[in-house]
């Protein structure tokens, strides 16, 4: 159905972005106006994402601008992630930036800087522009616009990364721009290969760039060209998603950016680039069968997971540790998608949602720690339990959630991934993955115990960091628990639909892998996502 809300969903953050830049023209009340504008915009965006998701649930898809914008169940899942995390980061930003303003901007080569009013305007303006670009990436039906949007996320977030203006921050921003732009250029090449092939078939240039049209004609695309294109796309957009070995920008960027931005980068942006990869993998699956994309996903997934956990070991910087946990989780998601079948895809998408929730929360927490200690080093940050008991409680619970301890959500998605792996005959790979995850577990636990326990430095005052920086964490914690214990019906419907989209046109029996003979596959061979969720959808 045509959806005017979809257009507004894009325009609201765009308008907010422009207004934030010029707000000082209207008088001396810059900060209150900025914050009001900011709140209004993130709230409106949140409401609009829910409306659009509702429309998708009702009608199957939401369209705008003569099919250039299209949200199906898969898109809606990502739109909701952007909306919710954007809103919570928005709330968090208010408390965080106020604190950083109080610290004040000093142009010295110190490790962690503060902000002044000019930089605050830039922050809020780019924050909304960043939201806009991410929303564009996940709502676009035009593969060229998809690429443009991803490229635009790099540009908008690069200035956010370097916002503090300190030497390490600028270096991180520079590294981020250079590596990701080069990476995404590969993505452009892949995109154009697909487009040029599609133009030959579809003849109508304006239609040939539409994902829906390419999917319709997928079976007639040139297989060799498509293989080539997908490799370029995986490498290109994979750079942006932080897939190892294209991850080298990631730890610097995540640790130098202001915390709400790190949260968005790690919890949301990564998903948006994965979204693009998934979109192209659907085309590839239709044209070449599932095995090509699945093998690539598995290989890169395992490499990412394995490399990331080793980088996590012995990491002394809280943010870098959390940063490396991103490729670890991206690796898991790719492995799940590579295992394929409805359960594998479901497990991957669920892991993606859960990781987004928990990682966003963890970066908020690291922001709270940063505000208190002005340091990210595990040698300095100690005794949080004495200094801020509530933050410390959340941090411990967050570590438990991130390592996938029950009853948190990641426990169940991890379990589903392992089940999907065993069902497809990759049980040995699952054992390897579980053992690798134990390394991540150790590293995160060491961080949790080192930060919360021990003796706090004498100069650190006791006290929590304030309502706006704790409430988003509390909300995310509740989400992590609720999704662990009970799934709301709307989310299961969305996931259900998204799995159908990703699994579209795959005729092979679900969960049949290398060893997928009847004796091994067992009763789960007949288990579909529908029966999995039948309890919630009420039939």
């Amino acid at each position, binding site marked *: 159905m045509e959806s005017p809300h979809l257009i507004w969903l894009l325009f609201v953050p765009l308008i907010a972005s422009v207004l934030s830049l010029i707000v000082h023209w209207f008088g001396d009340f810059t900060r209150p106006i900025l914050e009001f504008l900011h709140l209004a915009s993130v709230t409106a965006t949140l409401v609009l994402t829910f409306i659009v998701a509702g429309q998708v649930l009702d009608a199957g898809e939401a369209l705008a601008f003569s099919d250039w914008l299209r949200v199906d169940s898969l898109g809606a899942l990502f739109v909701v992630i952007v909306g919710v995390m954007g809103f919570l980061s928005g709330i968090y930003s208010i408390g965080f930036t106020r604190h950083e303003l109080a610290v004040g901007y000093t142009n010295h080569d110190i490790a962690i800087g503060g902000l002044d009013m000019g930089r605050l305007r830039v922050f809020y303006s780019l924050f909304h522009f960043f939201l806009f670009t991410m929303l564009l990436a996940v709502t676009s039906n035009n593969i060229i616009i998809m690429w443009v949007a991803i490229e635009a996320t790099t540009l908008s977030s690069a200035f956010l990364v370097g916002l503090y203006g300190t030497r390490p921050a600028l270096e991180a921003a520079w590294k981020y721009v250079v590596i990701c732009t080069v990476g995404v250029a590969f993505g452009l090449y892949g995109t154009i290969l697909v487009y040029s092939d599609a133009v030959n078939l579809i003849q109508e240039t304006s239609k040939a760039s539409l994902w829906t049209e390419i999917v319709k004609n997928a079976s007639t695309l040139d297989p060799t060209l498509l293989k080539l294109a997908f490799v370029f796309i995986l490498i290109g957009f994979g750079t942006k998603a932080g897939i190892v070995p294209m991850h080298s920008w990631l730890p610097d960027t995540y640790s130098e950016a202001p915390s709400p931005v790190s949260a968005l980068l790690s919890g949301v942006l990564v998903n948006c680039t994965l979204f693009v990869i998934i979109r192209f993998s659907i085309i590839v699956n239709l044209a070449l069968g599932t095995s090509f994309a699945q093998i690539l996903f598995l290989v890169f997934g395992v490499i990412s997971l394995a490399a990331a956990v080793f980088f996590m070991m012995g990491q002394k910087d809280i943010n870098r540790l959390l940063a490396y946990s991103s490729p670890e989780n991206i690796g898991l998601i790719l492995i799940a998608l590579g295992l394929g079948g409805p359960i594998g895809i479901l497990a991957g998408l669920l892991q993606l949602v859960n990781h987004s929730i928990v990682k966003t929360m963890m970066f908020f927490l690291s922001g709270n720690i940063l505000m208190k200690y002005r340091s990210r080093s595990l040698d300095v940050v100690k005794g949080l339990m004495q200094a801020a008991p509530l933050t410390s409680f959340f941090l411990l619970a967050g570590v438990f959630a991130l390592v996938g301890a029950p009853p948190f959500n990641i426990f169940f998605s991890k379990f589903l991934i*392992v*089940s999907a792996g065993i*069902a497809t005959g990759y049980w040995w790979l699952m054992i390897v993955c579980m*053992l690798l995850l134990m390394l991540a*577990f150790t590293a995160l636990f060491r961080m949790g115990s080192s930060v919360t*326990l021990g003796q706090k430095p004498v100069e650190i005052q006791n006290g929590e960091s304030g309502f706006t920086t704790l409430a988003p964490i509390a909300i995310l914690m509740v989400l992590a628990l609720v999704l662990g214990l009970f799934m709301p019906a709307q989310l299961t419907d969305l996931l259900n639909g998204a799995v159908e989209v990703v699994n579209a046109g795959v005729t092979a029996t679900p969960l049949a892998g290398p060893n997928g003979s009847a004796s091994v596959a067992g009763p789960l061979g007949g288990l579909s996502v529908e029966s999995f969720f039948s309890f919630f959808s009420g039939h």
Partner: protein
Amino acid sequence: MVTFVLAGILLPFLGSLLVLILPRSWVKATSQLVTFAAMLCTLFVLYSLGMTGKVGYTQDLLFFGDIVLYGVIVDKISALLGSVFILFGFLVVVYSGGYLSEKNRDHVEHNGVQRRYYFFLLTFIGAMAGLVMSSTMLGLLAFFELTGVCSWGLIGYYNDEKSLKAALKAIVTTELASVGLFIATAAFFVLTGGFQLSAFATLDDTIKTWLFIGILIAAWGKSAQLPLHFWLPDAMAAPTPISAYLHAASMVKAGVYIFARCLLSAGTVPQVIGVVGVIMAIVTMFYGLLMYFPQKDFKRLLAYSTITQLSYIFFALSLSIFGSATAFNGAIAHVFNHALGKGLFFLVAGAVGFSTGTRLLPNLKGLLKKMPLVGICFAVAALAVTGVPPFNGFFSKFTIFAGGFEAAKNAPLLMILVVIAILETIGSFAWLFWVFSSSVPGDSSAEVAAASDIAPSMKFALVILACLALLSGFFAMAWLK
């Protein structure tokens, strides 16, 4: 009835949440109240099961689609062990009330951190109850991992370098081991399409073997058996009531429990699992015995004693695979009896540390003269753990050996292993008797002579447990018959 079972599981969890939000001065009383209520609930379940002819039943509770995620199983075993775990939990909560104080000479307790202690302890008690009552693999797995997480918080409670390291070691080892259970559960789910343990019997032998290997690895880790035993002696850095609960009564029993529960559900089990289980148990038993001798620290001695006692349980459970129901019952009874006996022993060690400020055995002489109650409890605990009649350890050990002879009829080679186990039991009796005779009777050493009095709540827990260790003697055996 299921309401009471659920209350037993959920009350401690509720308590752990209350502990976080209630005023600090209420924390102790709240914890004692909820665990007392939970204890009453499970004792009632035990009582009513006994009244209704001990007929077990299951009730499915939590669904996902038509897949049962969690349910409770109430039978002879879960009711018996559930009640002893929660009862001991209650006693430990009471004991801790006195132990964690500024009068404690072993570890002076400064005010202000007790919330964390009770939060983790109550969550642990709830998780233990949830584990024992679970009728699904997923329930076993989730609560198994939850106990690990809580044990980290409890072992690291003293917040110094040593205890934090021990805590990390404990959780990493047990979680690494629990990968076995994780994979086994996922495979179980894939193969049976659900989580209900009752489906275990439908699997074929090859698959059962692989699943049991996963389960055994997890169980060995949790129950501190070779080669995953090394975390337990270090975990003695925990507060002593925690050691009593985690490292004698409950957490280390989680491992043997999942093994026992799966054996029970699986029906016939391939003998190769029995062979592996028996051999590892004997190796661990002997290793543990050898490690008795160099120990100077009271608690580390008890830790090694726990390792050997748990290998008796593994030994008996593995014997049951060769077709000895007696050995199985002996194992379950030993879980029950050892929880009370060794738990008491740890609480005695805690009381000694509390009043003298040392846990080093060479410094402890003449306990009976200065502290008659602690001295008597020491004697009771030592006799119960080494299995001297009429104390409870005797009944279960005797049954295990009887089961061993029964199983040896089918597999004569087992006889050698049973004889080795009997030799071990004599060895450990001799050593503990020597420790007892050098610390309890006679003239007091300087440390003991300067001892302070222990708190009333600690006395309460000691007396109750000493009585139980004496009176419960044949209760477990009679109940399981």
